[in-house]
Protein backbone atom coordinates (compact mmCIF):
# COMPACT_ATOMS: atom_id res chain seq x y z
CA UNK A 1 0.00 0.00 0.00
CA UNK A 2 2.76 2.46 0.95
CA UNK A 3 4.71 1.48 -2.14
CA UNK A 4 1.70 1.99 -4.32
CA UNK A 5 1.11 5.47 -3.00
CA UNK A 6 4.58 6.81 -3.71
CA UNK A 7 5.08 5.51 -7.22
CA UNK A 8 5.78 8.33 -9.65
CA UNK A 9 2.84 7.43 -11.79
CA UNK A 10 0.44 7.79 -8.91
CA UNK A 11 1.88 11.16 -7.96
CA UNK A 12 1.46 12.24 -11.56
CA UNK A 13 -2.07 11.03 -11.69
CA UNK A 14 -2.59 12.79 -8.38
CA UNK A 15 -5.88 12.51 -6.64
CA UNK A 16 -7.30 10.03 -9.15
CA UNK A 17 -4.42 7.67 -8.46
CA UNK A 18 -4.78 8.22 -4.73
CA UNK A 19 -8.47 7.43 -4.94
CA UNK A 20 -7.82 4.23 -6.84
CA UNK A 21 -5.04 3.08 -4.49
CA UNK A 22 -7.36 3.92 -1.64
CA UNK A 23 -10.13 1.82 -3.15
CA UNK A 24 -7.76 -1.08 -3.77
CA UNK A 25 -6.48 -0.87 -0.19
CA UNK A 26 -10.04 -0.83 1.11
CA UNK A 27 -10.87 -3.70 -1.22
CA UNK A 28 -8.12 -5.80 0.38
CA UNK A 29 -9.28 -4.98 3.90
CA UNK A 30 -11.33 -7.89 5.32
CA UNK A 31 -13.36 -5.63 7.62
CA UNK A 32 -14.32 -3.40 4.70
CA UNK A 33 -15.20 -6.46 2.61
CA UNK A 34 -17.53 -7.53 5.43
CA UNK A 35 -19.24 -4.14 5.27
CA UNK A 36 -19.65 -4.41 1.50
CA UNK A 37 -21.02 -7.93 1.89
CA UNK A 38 -23.89 -6.69 4.08
CA UNK A 39 -25.48 -5.51 0.83
CA UNK A 40 -25.46 -9.08 -0.48
CA UNK A 41 -27.25 -10.23 2.66
CA UNK A 42 -29.80 -7.50 2.01
CA UNK A 43 -30.18 -8.66 -1.61
CA UNK A 44 -30.89 -12.21 -0.41
CA UNK A 45 -33.39 -11.22 2.28
CA UNK A 46 -35.24 -8.65 0.18
CA UNK A 47 -35.40 -10.81 -2.94
CA UNK A 48 -36.71 -13.75 -0.93
CA UNK A 49 -39.23 -11.51 0.86
CA UNK A 50 -40.55 -9.77 -2.26
CA UNK A 51 -42.00 -12.73 -4.10
CA UNK A 52 -44.01 -15.82 -3.44
CA UNK A 53 -41.27 -18.18 -2.31
CA UNK A 54 -42.27 -20.65 -5.00
CA UNK A 55 -42.60 -17.95 -7.69
CA UNK A 56 -41.65 -19.35 -11.09
CA UNK A 57 -38.98 -17.86 -13.31
CA UNK A 58 -40.28 -16.63 -16.67
CA UNK A 59 -40.78 -19.42 -19.20
CA UNK A 60 -40.51 -18.73 -22.92
CA UNK A 61 -41.81 -20.25 -26.14
CA UNK A 62 -39.56 -22.38 -28.32
CA UNK A 63 -39.34 -19.52 -30.83
CA UNK A 64 -37.66 -17.34 -28.18
CA UNK A 65 -34.64 -19.65 -27.81
CA UNK A 66 -31.07 -18.57 -28.53
CA UNK A 67 -29.88 -19.97 -31.86
CA UNK A 68 -26.78 -21.29 -30.07
CA UNK A 69 -26.71 -21.97 -26.35
CA UNK A 70 -23.33 -20.80 -25.08
CA UNK A 71 -21.34 -23.24 -22.94
CA UNK A 72 -19.14 -21.77 -20.23
CA UNK A 73 -16.76 -23.03 -17.54
CA UNK A 74 -15.76 -26.67 -18.07
CA UNK A 75 -16.63 -27.82 -21.60
CA UNK A 76 -15.43 -31.38 -21.07
CA UNK A 77 -14.30 -32.91 -17.75
CA UNK A 78 -11.68 -34.80 -19.78
CA UNK A 79 -11.01 -37.60 -17.27
CA UNK A 80 -10.71 -41.26 -18.46
CA UNK A 81 -13.70 -42.23 -16.29
CA UNK A 82 -15.84 -39.52 -17.81
CA UNK A 83 -14.71 -40.36 -21.34
CA UNK A 84 -15.53 -44.04 -20.96
CA UNK A 85 -18.92 -43.22 -19.47
CA UNK A 86 -19.62 -40.80 -22.32
CA UNK A 87 -18.60 -43.49 -24.83
CA UNK A 88 -21.43 -45.71 -23.60
CA UNK A 89 -23.97 -42.92 -23.52
CA UNK A 90 -23.60 -42.55 -19.73
CA UNK A 91 -25.39 -45.90 -19.23
CA UNK A 92 -23.22 -46.45 -16.11
CA UNK A 93 -23.73 -42.93 -14.69
CA UNK A 94 -24.81 -42.97 -11.06
CA UNK A 95 -26.30 -40.11 -9.09
CA UNK A 96 -25.52 -40.70 -5.41
CA UNK A 97 -27.69 -39.16 -2.72
CA UNK A 98 -25.66 -39.09 0.48
CA UNK A 99 -25.54 -37.29 3.81
CA UNK A 100 -28.58 -36.37 5.86
CA UNK A 101 -31.14 -38.56 4.10
CA UNK A 102 -33.21 -41.21 5.84
CA UNK A 103 -32.91 -43.40 2.74
CA UNK A 104 -29.69 -42.47 0.96
CA UNK A 105 -29.63 -44.12 -2.45
CA UNK A 106 -28.18 -44.16 -5.97
CA UNK A 107 -30.04 -43.53 -9.19
CA UNK A 108 -28.93 -44.57 -12.65
CA UNK A 109 -29.47 -42.20 -15.54
CA UNK A 110 -32.18 -44.46 -16.99
CA UNK A 111 -33.95 -44.60 -13.61
CA UNK A 112 -34.01 -40.80 -13.54
CA UNK A 113 -35.27 -40.68 -17.11
CA UNK A 114 -38.17 -43.01 -16.32
CA UNK A 115 -39.46 -40.73 -13.56
CA UNK A 116 -41.99 -37.92 -14.19
CA UNK A 117 -40.20 -35.17 -16.12
CA UNK A 118 -40.47 -31.42 -16.35
CA UNK A 119 -39.71 -29.44 -19.52
CA UNK A 120 -39.10 -25.70 -19.24
CA UNK A 121 -37.79 -23.05 -21.61
CA UNK A 122 -35.92 -20.57 -19.47
CA UNK A 123 -33.30 -17.85 -19.64
CA UNK A 124 -29.85 -18.66 -18.33
CA UNK A 125 -28.23 -15.54 -16.88
CA UNK A 126 -24.48 -15.57 -16.44
CA UNK A 127 -22.84 -13.51 -13.70
CA UNK A 128 -20.68 -12.04 -16.48
CA UNK A 129 -23.73 -10.42 -18.05
CA UNK A 130 -24.71 -12.58 -21.03
CA UNK A 131 -27.92 -14.63 -21.33
CA UNK A 132 -29.09 -17.59 -23.38
CA UNK A 133 -32.54 -19.15 -23.65
CA UNK A 134 -32.89 -22.91 -23.94
CA UNK A 135 -35.39 -25.68 -23.35
CA UNK A 136 -34.47 -28.07 -20.56
CA UNK A 137 -35.97 -31.45 -19.68
CA UNK A 138 -35.21 -33.28 -16.48
CA UNK A 139 -36.46 -34.81 -13.28
CA UNK A 140 -37.70 -32.39 -10.61
CA UNK A 141 -35.32 -32.51 -7.67
CA UNK A 142 -38.30 -32.66 -5.31
CA UNK A 143 -39.08 -36.19 -6.53
CA UNK A 144 -35.61 -37.39 -5.53
CA UNK A 145 -35.71 -35.57 -2.20
CA UNK A 146 -39.08 -37.16 -1.40
CA UNK A 147 -37.75 -40.62 -2.26
CA UNK A 148 -34.58 -40.26 -0.18
CA UNK A 149 -36.34 -38.36 2.64
CA UNK A 150 -34.32 -35.54 4.15
CA UNK A 151 -33.57 -35.62 7.84
CA UNK A 152 -34.79 -32.64 9.86
CA UNK A 153 -31.23 -31.45 10.38
CA UNK A 154 -30.58 -31.04 6.63
CA UNK A 155 -30.35 -27.39 5.61
CA UNK A 156 -28.41 -27.39 2.33
CA UNK A 157 -27.98 -29.59 -0.72
CA UNK A 158 -24.44 -29.85 -2.07
CA UNK A 159 -23.98 -30.85 -5.71
CA UNK A 160 -20.79 -32.75 -6.43
CA UNK A 161 -19.54 -32.74 -10.01
CA UNK A 162 -17.28 -34.81 -12.27
CA UNK A 163 -15.32 -31.79 -13.51
CA UNK A 164 -12.36 -29.99 -12.05
CA UNK A 165 -11.28 -26.43 -12.68
CA UNK A 166 -7.67 -25.58 -11.92
CA UNK A 167 -7.31 -28.96 -10.20
CA UNK A 168 -10.23 -28.41 -7.81
CA UNK A 169 -13.50 -30.27 -8.04
CA UNK A 170 -16.45 -28.10 -9.02
CA UNK A 171 -19.33 -28.08 -6.57
CA UNK A 172 -22.30 -25.93 -5.74
CA UNK A 173 -24.98 -25.77 -3.07
CA UNK A 174 -28.52 -24.48 -2.65
CA UNK A 175 -30.89 -24.27 0.29
CA UNK A 176 -34.05 -26.34 0.65
CA UNK A 177 -36.32 -23.56 -0.60
CA UNK A 178 -34.64 -23.73 -3.98
CA UNK A 179 -34.27 -27.51 -3.65
CA UNK A 180 -38.05 -28.01 -3.56
CA UNK A 181 -38.83 -25.27 -6.11
CA UNK A 182 -40.86 -26.73 -9.01
CA UNK A 183 -38.38 -25.47 -11.64
CA UNK A 184 -35.36 -26.95 -9.87
CA UNK A 185 -34.59 -29.98 -12.02
CA UNK A 186 -31.72 -32.25 -12.89
CA UNK A 187 -31.72 -31.74 -16.65
CA UNK A 188 -30.54 -34.39 -19.12
CA UNK A 189 -31.93 -32.81 -22.30
CA UNK A 190 -31.33 -29.44 -23.90
CA UNK A 191 -33.49 -28.23 -26.81
CA UNK A 192 -35.00 -31.68 -27.30
CA UNK A 193 -31.70 -33.53 -27.58
CA UNK A 194 -29.46 -35.36 -25.14
CA UNK A 195 -27.57 -32.78 -23.08
CA UNK A 196 -24.27 -32.02 -24.88
CA UNK A 197 -20.99 -32.60 -23.05
CA UNK A 198 -20.19 -28.88 -23.20
CA UNK A 199 -23.41 -28.07 -21.34
CA UNK A 200 -22.91 -30.64 -18.56
CA UNK A 201 -23.85 -34.12 -19.82
CA UNK A 202 -25.39 -36.26 -18.59
CA UNK A 203 -26.93 -34.28 -15.70
CA UNK A 204 -26.89 -30.64 -14.80
CA UNK A 205 -28.74 -28.71 -12.13
CA UNK A 206 -31.19 -26.00 -13.16
CA UNK A 207 -31.96 -23.53 -10.39
CA UNK A 208 -33.71 -20.93 -12.49
CA UNK A 209 -33.93 -17.95 -10.15
CA UNK A 210 -30.16 -17.74 -9.72
CA UNK A 211 -27.14 -16.96 -11.90
CA UNK A 212 -25.40 -19.51 -14.10
CA UNK A 213 -22.57 -20.58 -11.78
CA UNK A 214 -25.15 -22.14 -9.43
CA UNK A 215 -26.25 -24.53 -12.21
CA UNK A 216 -23.72 -27.30 -11.51
CA UNK A 217 -22.79 -29.47 -14.51
CA UNK A 218 -21.73 -33.17 -14.69
CA UNK A 219 -23.57 -33.84 -11.39
CA UNK A 220 -22.50 -37.10 -9.73
CA UNK A 221 -23.92 -36.68 -6.27
CA UNK A 222 -26.19 -34.72 -3.98
CA UNK A 223 -25.14 -34.46 -0.36
CA UNK A 224 -27.60 -33.20 2.23
CA UNK A 225 -25.80 -31.25 4.97
CA UNK A 226 -26.63 -29.16 8.03
CA UNK A 227 -23.88 -26.65 7.28
CA UNK A 228 -21.57 -25.80 4.39
CA UNK A 229 -18.57 -25.49 6.69
CA UNK A 230 -16.95 -28.85 6.01
CA UNK A 231 -17.31 -28.72 2.22
CA UNK A 232 -14.48 -27.29 0.11
CA UNK A 233 -13.39 -24.10 1.84
CA UNK A 234 -16.80 -23.71 3.37
CA UNK A 235 -18.25 -20.97 1.21
CA UNK A 236 -20.73 -23.22 -0.56
CA UNK A 237 -19.29 -23.49 -4.05
CA UNK A 238 -16.26 -23.60 -6.31
CA UNK A 239 -16.41 -19.94 -7.40
CA UNK A 240 -17.25 -18.82 -3.88
CA UNK A 241 -14.08 -20.55 -2.60
CA UNK A 242 -11.83 -19.53 -5.46
CA UNK A 243 -12.96 -16.01 -6.35
CA UNK A 244 -15.23 -14.78 -3.55
CA UNK A 245 -18.46 -15.02 -5.55
CA UNK A 246 -21.62 -14.80 -3.47
CA UNK A 247 -23.31 -18.00 -2.38
CA UNK A 248 -26.70 -16.43 -3.13
CA UNK A 249 -26.75 -15.49 -6.81
CA UNK A 250 -30.17 -13.91 -7.30
CA UNK A 251 -28.73 -10.73 -8.78
Amino acid at each position, binding site marked *: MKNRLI*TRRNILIGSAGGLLSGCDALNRNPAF*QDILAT*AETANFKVQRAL*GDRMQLA*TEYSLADRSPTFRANGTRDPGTPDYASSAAQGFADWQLRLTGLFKKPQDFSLSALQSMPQRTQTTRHDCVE*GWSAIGQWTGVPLKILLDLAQLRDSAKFLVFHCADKLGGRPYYESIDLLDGFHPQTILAHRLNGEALPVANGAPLRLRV*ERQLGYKHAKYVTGIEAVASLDGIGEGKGGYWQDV*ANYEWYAGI
Partner: protein
Amino acid sequence: MSDEKPANRRRHGLTTRLWHWTNALCLLVLLMSGLTIFNAHPRLYWGEYGSNHDYAWMAVGSGETFGYLRFGETRIETTGVLGNWEDDQGRTQTWAFPGWATIPSYYSLADGRRWHFFFAWIFSIGLTLFMIRSFWNRHVQRDLHIGRKEWSPLALWRSFRQHTKFTEVRQSPDKPYNSIQKVSYVGVIFILLPLMIFTGLAMSPAMDANWPFLTDIFGGRQSARSIHFIAAFSLVLFFVIHLLMVILSGPIRPIKAMLTGGERREE
Protein backbone atom coordinates in the same frame (compact mmCIF):
# COMPACT_ATOMS: atom_id res chain seq x y z
CA MET B 1 -34.89 23.50 2.68
CA SER B 2 -34.19 23.53 6.37
CA ASP B 3 -35.56 27.01 6.84
CA GLU B 4 -39.28 27.31 6.09
CA LYS B 5 -39.40 31.10 6.03
CA PRO B 6 -39.34 32.01 2.34
CA ALA B 7 -37.85 35.43 2.97
CA ASN B 8 -34.78 33.90 4.53
CA ARG B 9 -33.82 30.85 2.48
CA ARG B 10 -30.39 29.53 1.70
CA ARG B 11 -29.43 28.63 -1.87
CA HIS B 12 -29.42 24.89 -1.04
CA GLY B 13 -31.28 23.18 1.79
CA LEU B 14 -29.55 20.75 4.13
CA THR B 15 -31.28 17.71 2.56
CA THR B 16 -30.20 18.82 -0.90
CA ARG B 17 -26.59 19.28 0.20
CA LEU B 18 -26.36 15.99 2.07
CA TRP B 19 -27.92 14.10 -0.81
CA HIS B 20 -25.85 15.88 -3.47
CA TRP B 21 -22.52 14.75 -2.01
CA THR B 22 -23.66 11.29 -0.93
CA ASN B 23 -25.09 10.79 -4.39
CA ALA B 24 -21.93 12.08 -6.09
CA LEU B 25 -19.83 9.55 -4.18
CA CYS B 26 -22.29 6.73 -4.90
CA LEU B 27 -22.44 7.49 -8.63
CA LEU B 28 -18.64 7.59 -8.90
CA VAL B 29 -18.26 4.21 -7.18
CA LEU B 30 -21.22 2.74 -9.08
CA LEU B 31 -19.77 3.85 -12.41
CA MET B 32 -16.28 2.50 -11.70
CA SER B 33 -17.43 -0.79 -10.18
CA GLY B 34 -19.98 -1.03 -13.01
CA LEU B 35 -17.14 -0.84 -15.53
CA THR B 36 -15.47 -3.78 -13.75
CA ILE B 37 -18.70 -5.75 -14.20
CA PHE B 38 -18.94 -4.66 -17.85
CA ASN B 39 -15.36 -5.90 -18.40
CA ALA B 40 -16.56 -9.45 -17.68
CA HIS B 41 -18.55 -9.36 -20.92
CA PRO B 42 -17.93 -6.16 -22.91
CA ARG B 43 -20.74 -6.69 -25.41
CA LEU B 44 -24.27 -5.23 -25.46
CA TYR B 45 -27.37 -6.73 -27.07
CA TRP B 46 -31.07 -6.00 -27.55
CA GLY B 47 -33.78 -8.44 -26.48
CA GLU B 48 -33.94 -11.18 -23.86
CA TYR B 49 -30.81 -13.14 -24.73
CA GLY B 50 -27.36 -12.36 -26.03
CA SER B 51 -24.00 -14.10 -25.78
CA ASN B 52 -20.88 -14.48 -27.90
CA HIS B 53 -22.79 -16.26 -30.67
CA ASP B 54 -25.30 -13.42 -31.02
CA TYR B 55 -25.04 -10.01 -32.68
CA ALA B 56 -23.88 -7.28 -30.29
CA TRP B 57 -24.82 -3.70 -31.21
CA MET B 58 -21.86 -2.48 -29.22
CA ALA B 59 -18.68 -4.26 -28.22
CA VAL B 60 -15.17 -3.60 -27.02
CA GLY B 61 -12.69 -5.97 -28.61
CA SER B 62 -9.03 -6.82 -28.22
CA GLY B 63 -6.29 -7.99 -30.49
CA GLU B 64 -2.75 -8.83 -29.39
CA THR B 65 -1.54 -5.33 -30.13
CA PHE B 66 -4.67 -3.24 -30.41
CA GLY B 67 -8.05 -2.52 -28.87
CA TYR B 68 -11.21 -1.30 -30.52
CA LEU B 69 -14.73 -0.10 -29.88
CA ARG B 70 -17.41 -1.27 -32.30
CA PHE B 71 -20.82 0.36 -32.76
CA GLY B 72 -22.85 -1.64 -35.27
CA GLU B 73 -20.50 -1.98 -38.24
CA THR B 74 -18.29 0.96 -37.29
CA ARG B 75 -14.96 0.12 -35.66
CA ILE B 76 -12.95 2.75 -33.84
CA GLU B 77 -9.42 1.92 -32.75
CA THR B 78 -8.99 2.56 -29.02
CA THR B 79 -5.54 1.10 -28.34
CA GLY B 80 -4.17 2.48 -25.06
CA VAL B 81 -7.62 3.19 -23.62
CA LEU B 82 -10.10 0.39 -24.36
CA GLY B 83 -9.40 -3.27 -25.07
CA ASN B 84 -5.62 -2.99 -25.01
CA TRP B 85 -3.81 -0.82 -22.48
CA GLU B 86 -0.87 -0.79 -20.08
CA ASP B 87 -1.42 -1.17 -16.34
CA ASP B 88 0.65 0.69 -13.72
CA GLN B 89 3.26 -2.09 -13.81
CA GLY B 90 3.70 -1.58 -17.56
CA ARG B 91 2.00 -4.87 -18.45
CA THR B 92 -0.38 -5.03 -21.41
CA GLN B 93 -3.97 -5.79 -20.38
CA THR B 94 -6.83 -6.65 -22.68
CA TRP B 95 -9.81 -5.97 -20.43
CA ALA B 96 -12.23 -3.48 -21.99
CA PHE B 97 -12.01 -0.56 -19.55
CA PRO B 98 -8.57 0.32 -18.13
CA GLY B 99 -7.58 -0.01 -14.47
CA TRP B 100 -7.77 3.72 -13.75
CA ALA B 101 -11.49 3.64 -14.59
CA THR B 102 -12.50 0.59 -12.54
CA ILE B 103 -12.97 -0.46 -8.91
CA PRO B 104 -10.98 -2.41 -7.99
CA SER B 105 -8.24 -1.27 -10.38
CA TYR B 106 -7.49 -4.92 -11.19
CA TYR B 107 -10.08 -7.32 -12.60
CA SER B 108 -12.23 -8.99 -9.96
CA LEU B 109 -15.84 -9.49 -10.94
CA ALA B 110 -16.83 -10.65 -7.45
CA ASP B 111 -15.28 -7.59 -5.77
CA GLY B 112 -16.69 -5.20 -8.39
CA ARG B 113 -20.15 -6.65 -7.73
CA ARG B 114 -19.77 -6.23 -3.96
CA TRP B 115 -18.88 -2.55 -4.31
CA HIS B 116 -21.65 -2.08 -6.85
CA PHE B 117 -24.44 -3.60 -4.76
CA PHE B 118 -23.37 -1.93 -1.51
CA PHE B 119 -23.33 1.53 -3.07
CA ALA B 120 -26.49 0.72 -5.05
CA TRP B 121 -28.34 0.31 -1.75
CA ILE B 122 -27.05 3.63 -0.39
CA PHE B 123 -27.80 5.33 -3.71
CA SER B 124 -31.38 3.94 -3.89
CA ILE B 125 -32.24 4.73 -0.28
CA GLY B 126 -30.68 8.19 -0.61
CA LEU B 127 -32.60 8.99 -3.79
CA THR B 128 -35.89 7.83 -2.26
CA LEU B 129 -35.40 9.91 0.90
CA PHE B 130 -34.33 12.94 -1.15
CA MET B 131 -37.41 12.68 -3.38
CA ILE B 132 -39.79 12.38 -0.41
CA ARG B 133 -38.17 15.27 1.45
CA SER B 134 -38.01 17.48 -1.65
CA PHE B 135 -41.72 17.12 -2.38
CA TRP B 136 -42.59 17.53 1.27
CA ASN B 137 -40.61 20.76 1.74
CA ARG B 138 -41.72 21.95 -1.72
CA HIS B 139 -38.17 22.14 -3.12
CA VAL B 140 -39.43 20.35 -6.25
CA GLN B 141 -42.56 22.45 -6.66
CA ARG B 142 -40.75 25.71 -5.91
CA ASP B 143 -37.34 25.35 -7.52
CA LEU B 144 -37.55 22.53 -10.07
CA HIS B 145 -41.08 22.72 -11.43
CA ILE B 146 -40.92 23.51 -15.13
CA GLY B 147 -43.71 25.94 -16.02
CA ARG B 148 -45.61 25.57 -19.28
CA LYS B 149 -43.96 28.70 -20.68
CA GLU B 150 -40.52 27.32 -19.94
CA TRP B 151 -41.23 24.30 -22.12
CA SER B 152 -41.67 26.43 -25.25
CA PRO B 153 -38.90 26.02 -27.84
CA LEU B 154 -38.25 29.76 -27.71
CA ALA B 155 -37.74 29.72 -23.93
CA LEU B 156 -35.41 26.73 -24.17
CA TRP B 157 -33.49 28.43 -26.98
CA ARG B 158 -33.13 31.58 -24.87
CA SER B 159 -31.93 29.48 -21.97
CA PHE B 160 -29.44 27.76 -24.24
CA ARG B 161 -28.17 31.16 -25.46
CA GLN B 162 -27.69 32.22 -21.84
CA HIS B 163 -25.40 29.25 -21.35
CA THR B 164 -23.16 30.50 -24.14
CA LYS B 165 -22.72 33.97 -22.61
CA PHE B 166 -20.06 34.17 -19.96
CA THR B 167 -21.59 37.08 -18.00
CA GLU B 168 -24.96 35.32 -17.82
CA VAL B 169 -23.29 32.11 -16.61
CA ARG B 170 -21.36 34.09 -13.98
CA GLN B 171 -24.61 35.53 -12.62
CA SER B 172 -26.50 32.23 -12.63
CA PRO B 173 -25.63 31.20 -9.02
CA ASP B 174 -27.68 34.21 -7.82
CA LYS B 175 -30.73 33.45 -9.95
CA PRO B 176 -33.45 30.82 -9.81
CA TYR B 177 -32.74 27.80 -12.01
CA ASN B 178 -33.17 28.52 -15.73
CA SER B 179 -35.18 26.27 -18.08
CA ILE B 180 -32.30 24.08 -19.21
CA GLN B 181 -31.09 23.67 -15.64
CA LYS B 182 -34.55 22.60 -14.53
CA VAL B 183 -35.01 20.20 -17.45
CA SER B 184 -31.63 18.59 -16.83
CA TYR B 185 -32.02 18.34 -13.03
CA VAL B 186 -35.54 16.92 -13.34
CA GLY B 187 -34.37 14.59 -16.11
CA VAL B 188 -31.53 13.28 -13.96
CA ILE B 189 -33.42 13.01 -10.65
CA PHE B 190 -36.73 11.67 -11.91
CA ILE B 191 -35.78 9.81 -15.10
CA LEU B 192 -32.13 8.78 -15.36
CA LEU B 193 -31.45 7.86 -11.73
CA PRO B 194 -34.65 5.78 -11.29
CA LEU B 195 -33.91 4.21 -14.68
CA MET B 196 -30.53 3.05 -13.35
CA ILE B 197 -32.23 1.34 -10.41
CA PHE B 198 -34.99 -0.32 -12.41
CA THR B 199 -32.80 -1.50 -15.30
CA GLY B 200 -30.39 -2.84 -12.66
CA LEU B 201 -33.13 -4.79 -10.93
CA ALA B 202 -34.44 -6.02 -14.30
CA MET B 203 -31.16 -7.89 -14.85
CA SER B 204 -31.60 -9.96 -11.69
CA PRO B 205 -32.98 -13.47 -12.28
CA ALA B 206 -34.62 -13.49 -8.83
CA MET B 207 -36.30 -10.13 -9.47
CA ASP B 208 -37.40 -11.39 -12.87
CA ALA B 209 -39.24 -14.22 -11.10
CA ASN B 210 -40.65 -11.85 -8.47
CA TRP B 211 -41.60 -8.98 -10.81
CA PRO B 212 -41.57 -10.27 -14.42
CA PHE B 213 -43.10 -7.00 -15.71
CA LEU B 214 -39.90 -5.18 -14.79
CA THR B 215 -37.78 -7.03 -17.35
CA ASP B 216 -40.65 -6.92 -19.89
CA ILE B 217 -40.94 -3.12 -19.69
CA PHE B 218 -37.38 -2.78 -20.96
CA GLY B 219 -37.79 -5.43 -23.66
CA GLY B 220 -35.76 -8.20 -22.03
CA ARG B 221 -32.75 -8.71 -19.83
CA GLN B 222 -30.17 -7.80 -22.45
CA SER B 223 -32.12 -4.67 -23.43
CA ALA B 224 -32.22 -3.69 -19.75
CA ARG B 225 -28.44 -4.17 -19.62
CA SER B 226 -27.97 -1.98 -22.70
CA ILE B 227 -30.25 0.75 -21.29
CA HIS B 228 -28.40 0.53 -17.95
CA PHE B 229 -25.16 1.22 -19.81
CA ILE B 230 -26.59 4.03 -21.98
CA ALA B 231 -28.20 5.72 -18.96
CA ALA B 232 -24.90 5.46 -17.05
CA PHE B 233 -23.05 7.26 -19.82
CA SER B 234 -25.85 9.83 -20.08
CA LEU B 235 -25.09 10.56 -16.42
CA VAL B 236 -21.40 10.87 -17.26
CA LEU B 237 -22.34 13.40 -19.96
CA PHE B 238 -24.51 15.29 -17.46
CA PHE B 239 -21.61 15.28 -14.99
CA VAL B 240 -19.16 16.70 -17.54
CA ILE B 241 -21.49 19.59 -18.48
CA HIS B 242 -22.47 20.12 -14.83
CA LEU B 243 -18.81 20.39 -13.85
CA LEU B 244 -18.06 22.72 -16.75
CA MET B 245 -20.92 25.01 -15.73
CA VAL B 246 -19.76 25.03 -12.10
CA ILE B 247 -16.26 25.99 -13.20
CA LEU B 248 -17.48 28.72 -15.57
CA SER B 249 -19.91 30.17 -13.04
CA GLY B 250 -17.51 30.32 -10.13
CA PRO B 251 -16.21 27.87 -9.30
CA ILE B 252 -15.65 28.63 -5.59
CA ARG B 253 -19.00 30.19 -4.79
CA PRO B 254 -21.32 27.51 -6.21
CA ILE B 255 -19.24 24.74 -4.62
CA LYS B 256 -19.23 26.57 -1.29
CA ALA B 257 -22.99 27.02 -1.57
CA MET B 258 -23.46 23.30 -2.06
CA LEU B 259 -21.35 22.70 1.07
CA THR B 260 -22.58 25.41 3.45
CA GLY B 261 -25.92 26.25 1.89
CA GLY B 262 -24.85 29.65 0.61
CA GLU B 263 -25.90 33.07 1.75
CA ARG B 264 -29.35 33.60 3.13
CA ARG B 265 -31.23 35.84 0.79
CA GLU B 266 -34.57 37.52 0.51
CA GLU B 267 -36.92 36.60 -2.26
